[in-house]
């Protein structure tokens, strides 16, 4: 990236190189946003609706494009054309800015997200720390939205969200520490490089502590992303639509964009920290082919977690505020502390890790997954809907 900009700057000796950098970075940023982030967030909305529909024995959007695939474009267009209603008693500047702050917070996280071995906008040496820092913009945006709407439901939503994100920052942070301890770096590419393509070399299966860390991280990330069972800020049956109650049109859509986009961020973080990120076997020397394979690996892993988050959302009820806090402070934080100490102890006792332990961990996880799949299929066989059709039409 830098070399490329240097070359451009050399072509225009009269222009300050700093200006070229600035314009170049802005253009590149805009490109990433439009070519990758917006479509991923939009398509995630369509996927989520289809996945839910499947789980809820509905059909879901199926009119626009093949399988309703273009629904997200249609919705975006519709919302762009809608009137931007600003209620009378709101704090107008804050009300207008809030959605942009939220979107900025989540888009900025993409700066340090790895896509493939050579594809990352900036491999910061504080990568993971940067991401947890910049996403705090989202909280501020949500609080702004909640307060400026001049609506008590909005405010309750904003306050819930702020509480939630601040509190769960701690278990999430604690579950990142063991990974950082193992990798010896905060850089995202560094963390991935410390793992390999095989599951036995993933951080997740290093020791039981890391596996628990992984669970803590996923649960905490769901909470920070305001996803069910922790979707209290926008709990539609309690707070109408939480902080987004007074928003309409594109501004309202921006909040959802950030939510769906955040899902992908969560997926990438989980696969980077615990599942070897873009690591693939070195099967070819062709750099482009390798990069494509790495990108695909990363995307599949990340999207698997996106799917799990959707699945969880369609399955679980919502916890109450006090239960939510209890879970965080009485369970997740102590467990996280134990994990940090445990991992550090492991690293002193077994500096190279134990390949036997890794294999046992992988085998146990596989066994749990197989058992789970068997239960799912058992229930699917037992479920007898779909065979009946419209009773009143069938012959007796």
């Amino acid at each position, binding site marked *: 990236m830098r070399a490329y900009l240097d070359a451009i700057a050399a072509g225009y000796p009269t222009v300050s190189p700093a200006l070229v950098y600035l314009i170049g970075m802005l253009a590149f940023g805009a490109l990433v946003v439009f070519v990758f982030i917006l479509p991923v967030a939009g398509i995630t909305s369509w996927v989520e609706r289809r996945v839910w529909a499947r789980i809820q*024995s509905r059909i879901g959007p199926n009119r626009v494009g093949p399988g309703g695939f273009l629904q997200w474009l249609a919705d975006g267009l519709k919302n762009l054309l809608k009137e931007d209603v600003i209620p009378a008693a709101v704090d107008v500047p804050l009300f207008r800015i809030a959605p942009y702050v939220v979107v900025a917070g989540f888009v900025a996280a993409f700066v340090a997200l790895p896509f493939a071995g050579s594809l990352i906008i900036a491999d910061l040496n504080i990568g993971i720390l940067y991401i947890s820092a910049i996403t705090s913009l989202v909280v501020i945006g949500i609080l702004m939205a909640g307060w400026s709407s001049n609506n008590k439901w909005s405010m309750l939503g904003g306050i819930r969200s702020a509480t939630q994100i601040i509190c769960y920052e701690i278990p999430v942070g604690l579950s990142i520490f063991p990974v950082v301890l193992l990798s010896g770096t905060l850089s995202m590419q560094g963390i991935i490089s410390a793992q390999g393509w095989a599951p036995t070399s993933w951080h997740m299966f290093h020791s039981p502590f890391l596996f628990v860390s992984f669970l803590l991280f996923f649960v905490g990330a769901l909470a920070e992303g305001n996803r069910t069972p922790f979707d209290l800020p926008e709990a539609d049956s*309690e707070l109408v639509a939480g902080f987004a109650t007074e928003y309409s049109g594109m501004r309202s859509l921006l909040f959802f964009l950030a939510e769906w986009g955040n899902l992908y961020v969560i997926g990438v973080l989980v696969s980077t920290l615990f599942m070897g990120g873009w690591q693939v076997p070195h099967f070819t020397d062709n750099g482009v082919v390798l990069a494509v394979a790495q990108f695909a690996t990363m995307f599949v892993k990340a999207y698997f977690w996106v799917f799990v988050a959707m699945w969880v959302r369609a399955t679980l*009820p919502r*916890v109450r*505020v006090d239960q939510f806090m209890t879970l965080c402070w009485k369970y997740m934080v102590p467990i996280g502390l134990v994990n940090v100490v445990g991992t550090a102890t492991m690293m002193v006792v077994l500096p190279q890790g134990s390949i036997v332990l890794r294999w046992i961990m992988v085998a146990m996880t596989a066994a749990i997954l197989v058992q789970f799949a068997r239960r799912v299929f058992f229930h699917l066989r037992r*479920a007898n809907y779909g065979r009946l059709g419209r009773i009143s039409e069938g012959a007796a």
Partner: protein
Amino acid sequence: MSLELEFADGRDVFATEDMVLNMGPQHPSTHGVLRFIIRADGEVMRSAKADVGYLHRSIEKIAEKVGWHGFMPYTDRVDYVAAMTTNQAWAMAAEVLGGVTVPRRGEYCRVIAAELGRICSHLLAAGAMGMDIGAITPFTHAVRERELINDLLEELCGARLTFNYMRIGGVAWDLPPGFGAKVLRFLDHFEPYVDELDDLLSGNKIYIERLANVAVVSRERAIAYNLVGPNLRASGVKYDIRKHLPYSVYPEFDFEVPIGEGRHGSVGDCWDRYIVRLHEMRQSARILRQAIDGLPEGPVIAKVPRNYKPAAGEVHVHVETPRGDQSWYVVADGTEYPYRVHIRTGSFAAMAMIEELSRGLMIADLVALIASFDIVAPEVDR
């Protein structure tokens, strides 16, 4: 050290105020047009005052002007989630006043229709319960099953929500050919489904945490507040009008009255109210099977004059609707119009209790409480 800080207008800086929240009339989880005025300290409610009357349509007054037969369609609107039982209550009141005896086949038709309606209503209640707690999937599954019943009832009387099926002296139409077999086929499908809903929702850890020990109604308070139906039975009182003040042909059927057992908390919590409804669906299925098996032959409606004029007098009938004992107090003065009609409904009693129960609950619990009482707004206001 004393710290006396005041605002310029003399208010104490450290004084706190309650937040007054307006939940409704348009709110996603108030099940119709209900309104609660919540005084809350943060998320904890000091009180939730119900403000009723948004759905008042003067149904009782209308009865005094439309006549005995003409009032039947209006009864559908008293509780549009379970219109069959309201139909039945009005028909029964008029029959008692006029001394009309319903043919046995007519009574069986009524029971079949009413029990299908009960399953319908309980499905909606259980699904909406999950929805209000935040689980979106059980609702669509429950509504899918409800759709099958709606199809059956559509075949029976042409309507899917406001049935207008019963008449003074019986029912409007006999069961269509093959209807019994279809109901049995539906039940074969439905009974395993109740178990499935049970698996899907009842044992969920978060679901139990949200409902167990929330808004516990003790046996004594339930009786003192005159709770009825599933809400009363969840508090451990075995009282079902179908068993204890029998009407129609219910004494001929063998069924049980499920009561709350406090499996995950105290007897009479939200979870008990939910599970009682689930068990009642199974019992309704049992009644339906027996009714289809024992369906007698004969007419479905007695000879009732078009110009129906019951003798002067008054009557108080009780019917077990999905929301409990619905009692109709009807006064006749010997003309073709009722003199006075008063309906006392289950939701009304439950609504009255919410203010007491809401103290110290969180806002999220209020949603669970409303859902667990299965309040249907039109039934409160009429």
